[in-house]
């Protein structure tokens, strides 16, 4: 029997170990970037010789850095609003409604998730170019936003759909029994219950848009977002300003992700407590 227990112990260690190794794999480039952002030398190889903040200053002195930040922030803010609203509406239609052509609706709203981003960008670029020829506009931040909304909405939809699925509908019935009309039920019961899911979908959408390279790269025309700024920079040659930028990028993202996830989880737990079955 001891060998049996030993085998169990080995399996447990192996599984937990694989997960730990995966986290190491995920965080190796991230931690490396943070470490190299404080180097005092221009060369990005080990050993790191000295400690300095000079590359942060260098980064801010780059003339096209702050405009790229502003562009990214604008694009991410607008895309987040649209993707979250459309995704939430879509999630309700996916899970709670039954209507004609629902399968076609599901297919079309899910398909961008199964599409390589580069091809999504290319396909939309062709369309905007043809359309632009007819109507006299060229690609820029507006087309980037449209591209991001198409790419990100399915992600938001899936996240909100999970919340819609784990939803305690007796609360809605109770509100209806108490005399609330359809809109009042939505405003007072449905929306507050879905809010944690919607909120984490919004955070997800914001960060996906903020870090998006492929779609922006195809659709930005001459405009530059942050990932395009980095890409065109590292294509020319590496410099410690990019690790510095990465480090600045990580801090707010980590806070947002942690906050959103905790909120959503707490709400899911609260909801599933009274009845454990679906």
């Amino acid at each position, binding site marked *: 029997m001891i060998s049996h227990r030993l*085998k169990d112990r080995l*399996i447990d260690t*192996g*599984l*937990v170990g*694989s*997960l730990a190794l*995966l*986290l190491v794999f*995920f965080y*190796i*480039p*991230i931690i*490396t*970037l943070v470490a*190299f952002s404080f180097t005092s030398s221009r060369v*990005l*190889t080990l050993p790191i010789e000295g400690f300095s903040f000079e590359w942060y200053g260098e980064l801010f002195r780059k003339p096209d850095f702050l405009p790229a930040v502003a562009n990214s922030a604008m694009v991410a803010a607008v895309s987040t609003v649209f993707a979250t609203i*459309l995704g939430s*509406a*879509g999630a309700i*239609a996916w*899970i*709670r*409604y*039954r*209507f004609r052509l629902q399968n076609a609706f599901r297919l*079309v*709203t899910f*398909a*961008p998730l199964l*599409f*390589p981003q*580069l*091809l*999504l960008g*290319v*396909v*939309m670029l*062709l*369309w905007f170019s043809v359309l632009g020829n007819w109507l006299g506009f060229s690609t820029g931040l507006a087309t980037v936003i449209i*591209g991001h909304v*198409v790419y990100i*909405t399915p992600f938001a939809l899936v996240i909100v759909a999970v919340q819609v699925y784990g939803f305690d*509908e007796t609360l809605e019935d109770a509100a209806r029994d108490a005399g609330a009309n359809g809109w009042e039920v939505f405003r007072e019961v449905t929306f507050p219950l879905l809010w944690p899911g919607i909120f984490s979908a919004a955070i997800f959408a914001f*960060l996906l848009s*903020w*870090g998006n390279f*492929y779609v922006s790269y195809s659709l930005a025309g001459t405009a530059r977002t942050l*990932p395009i700024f*980095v*890409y065109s920079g*590292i294509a020319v040659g590496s410099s410690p300003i*990019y*690790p510095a930028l990465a480090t600045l*990028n990580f801090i707010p*993202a980590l806070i947002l*992700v*942690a906050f959103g*996830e905790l909120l959503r989880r707490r709400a899911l737990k609260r909801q599933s407590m009274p009845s454990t079955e679906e």
Partner: protein
Amino acid sequence: MNIEHKTWKDPVLIAVVAPLAIVMLVFFLVPLAMTAVLTFQTTQYYRLVWTWDLKVWTEVFSKPHYWTIIGRTIVMAIVCVVLCLLIAFPTAYALATRLKSYNTQIQIMIVFAFLTDAVLKTFGWILVLDRNGVANWMLGTVGFAPDSLDILFSPAGAMVGMVYNLVVYPMFTLYLSLVRIDRDLLLAAYDSGASRLRTFFEVTLPLSRPGLYSGGVLVFVLSLGAFLEPKVLGGGTSPLASELIRQSFETRVNWPLGAALTIVLISVGALTLALAGLLAMKRSPALRRRAA
């Protein structure tokens, strides 16, 4: 679950469904159709000429060079799928069945790594895989020879980046199927005398098949369009289809050719999806019944 049956006369349904449907129609389906139409046009002096011509398609099918690259892209995608599933299965299983009290924290860490700017992470891999980088230093401390890892600017380097950026997808789908497995089924298997290994192969693995399939297909389709990793970590010596498509748009300004290559790649992806769908339906009678 409160399911509401709605008709298209209901203004609520239209308000909820129409905006998203229209966005996807106008900015996803129509562009896709447009791309297909463009493959039948030609260019002259870098300008698009509207004709109906099979010139581009004859070029695509007569140049083996294109098919070598597309073939290489498919091989890379298959290798990426295998590696991603091999990594995702044990880790998703561990996440679903072990470490219950740290579950939230680990998931937050994974989500954060996934949501970080891909260009920056890929750049981070250059620093890690460099000859004097972190990976060689780590291998050195365990006793390997210096410079023992030399995969930066090679297909293997690109593969590291692709697996890194895509492994989250099968982890997610596998996790979803693994947490849904009823513990009573496992206990029943143990009670009837099955060993852990036997239970794994006869209960856990079959029940996790939906996650395995959907994760694998997702990685395959998404890696067909990998561009950043081969370009930044692969060194450009063996270009993939995405690079070919980008060149035909940017360098050669040949839109119909770029559109045709895009359609070829999308067709490979769509065929894979359709095959996987058929396979899944064959395996699962429940799905077949729902489709009928």
